[in-house]
């Protein structure tokens, strides 16, 4: 059964130094608030997994929370590079970052394998690509029935997965909809799962076959409205495209980044204080 607790308590209880952590979200429903809380609590030596690391991973990496990144596309969508990721890879700042690079199809299959309790995933991939040359974990397996040579990749089985969703009920059952990415697979592949939600309701009123994660498959549910910002929660909030653009100059230099983290993350007690501070700053402009 998921406990319905504060995000502070969920991160404190369920995210440990050295854990493999997946904060998933495919542009939609990115668990930004949880990422901020991981930074605030100074979690260290994390192996971060995500198909599409974007701003929140840039922040976690720049703040020194990560020692390794497993990913398949890293960028600021529609804007450009992740400068903190690049600085960590190219100049080891603030500490060295190992990278393990895959393709989307690979990681998507690896989450499915993880959720299925399997040690590896099999897919038709990578023939002719240089990625297997730089990632020794991408191997091949021969089909015992047809002889076809296929790609084999280790499953992703995080210690903790964190996702954001639209609704939970008071027992901690979670409903999400819209662009689902690999969140269900990531949640079920993990040993523990934290879900932040837009609202907690008496009855989910979930349509049959909807994407519902039952409370008994989760560790914690936290009420964090707007917790996906600058990503969005379909039906609740809009994507803040301006923030994605604004992040580029902030992240470009170590000084502007550090000042931002000090002001907005270490300088706030929780996500609602962060939101209030951000709103005041944008009004002042």
């Amino acid at each position: 059964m998921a406990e319905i607790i504060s995000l502070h308590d969920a991160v404190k209880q369920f995210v440990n130094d050295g854990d493999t952590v997946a904060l998933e979200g495919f542009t939609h429903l990115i668990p930004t608030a949880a990422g901020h809380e991981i930074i605030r609590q100074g979690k260290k030596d994390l192996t971060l997994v995500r198909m599409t690391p974007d701003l929140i991973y840039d922040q976690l990496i720049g703040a020194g929370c990560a020692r390794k990144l497993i990913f398949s596309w890293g960028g600021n969508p529609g804007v450009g590079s992740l400068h903190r990721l690049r600085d960590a890879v190219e100049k080891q700042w603030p500490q060295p970052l190992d990278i393990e690079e895959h393709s989307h199809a690979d990681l998507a299959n690896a989450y499915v394998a993880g959720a299925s309790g399997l040690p590896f995933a099999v897919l038709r991939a990578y023939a002719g690509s240089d990625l297997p040359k730089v990632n020794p974990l991408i191997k091949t397996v021969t089909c015992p029935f047809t002889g076809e040579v296929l790609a084999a990749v280790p499953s992703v089985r995080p210690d903790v997965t964190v996702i954001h969703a639209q609704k939970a009920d008071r027992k901690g059952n979670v409903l999400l909809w819209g662009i689902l990415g690999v969140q269900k697979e990531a949640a079920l592949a993990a040993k523990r799962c934290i879900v932040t939600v837009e609202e907690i309701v008496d009855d989910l009123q979930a349509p049959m076959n909807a994407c519902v994660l039952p409370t008994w498959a989760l560790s914690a549910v936290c009420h964090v409205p707007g917790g996906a910002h600058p990503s969005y929660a379909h039906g609740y909030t809009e994507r803040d495209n301006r923030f994605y653009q604004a992040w580029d100059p902030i992240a470009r230099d170590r000084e502007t980044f550090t000042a931002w983290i000090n002001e907005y993350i270490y300088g706030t007690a929780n996500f609602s204080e962060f939101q209030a501070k951000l709103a005041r700053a944008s009004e002042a402009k």
Partner: protein
Amino acid sequence: MAYSTNEMMTVAAARRLKNGSVCFVGIGLPSKAANLARLTSSPDVVLIYESGPIGAKPNVLPLSIGDGELAETADTVVSTSEIFRYWLQGGRVDVGFLGAAQVDRFGNINTTVVGDYHHPKVRLPGAGGAPEIAGSAKSVLIILKQSARSFVDKLDFITSVGHGEGGDSRKRLGLPGAGPVGIITDLCIMEPEAQTNEFVVTALHPGVTREQVVAATGWAIRFADNVELTAEPTDVELTALRDLETRTALAHGQAPGEA
């Protein structure tokens, strides 16, 4: 109507998408061209985005691969794992429509690094869905602006394979799809030559000279025996494209032209 070279590129790419075909769309230029096709010559094209929407009909161009507009206008929205497993690997995609940072003469694509992988000069975003789209889609179209920096003699990294080392090398790799059948740029259209599978110029856009194409290509580009002249964008095509860009800029709070 007067038009820009970028508009010519988008229009020429849109024309390549047959009505009714199932197209796996990359974000950015491919998405713009694919939606222009849907709004003009190919109203029944089926657009699949890797985030999960199948049959997306966005009224404005998505800024990210997972914009809500894609989900709201789709026939159905499935998980990303299902997109790659059932729909792409399952063999249901006719055309993979890709962008690239760099391509070579055999239509191989680099979106990973410029320079050495471990000590890159430029670190690019990485593979995303492209390697398996390039492998499994029945055919592939590539759209990108042409310059000697993007059309290179030798890729630093092959992220997604085209025709490999040329000739029958793609077949020997055992890839299910036919690979890239066209590269559409702001200067010309290239197609793979029979036998060698090396890309040669098969059409020049109006006003573009062979010298310009040679100067903007990092390998000794060759021209087909019959080089056609791309038809200029029609008023209908240009109006549809500009309206789409204006709607997009308004929706995303951008200045016109930023989209």
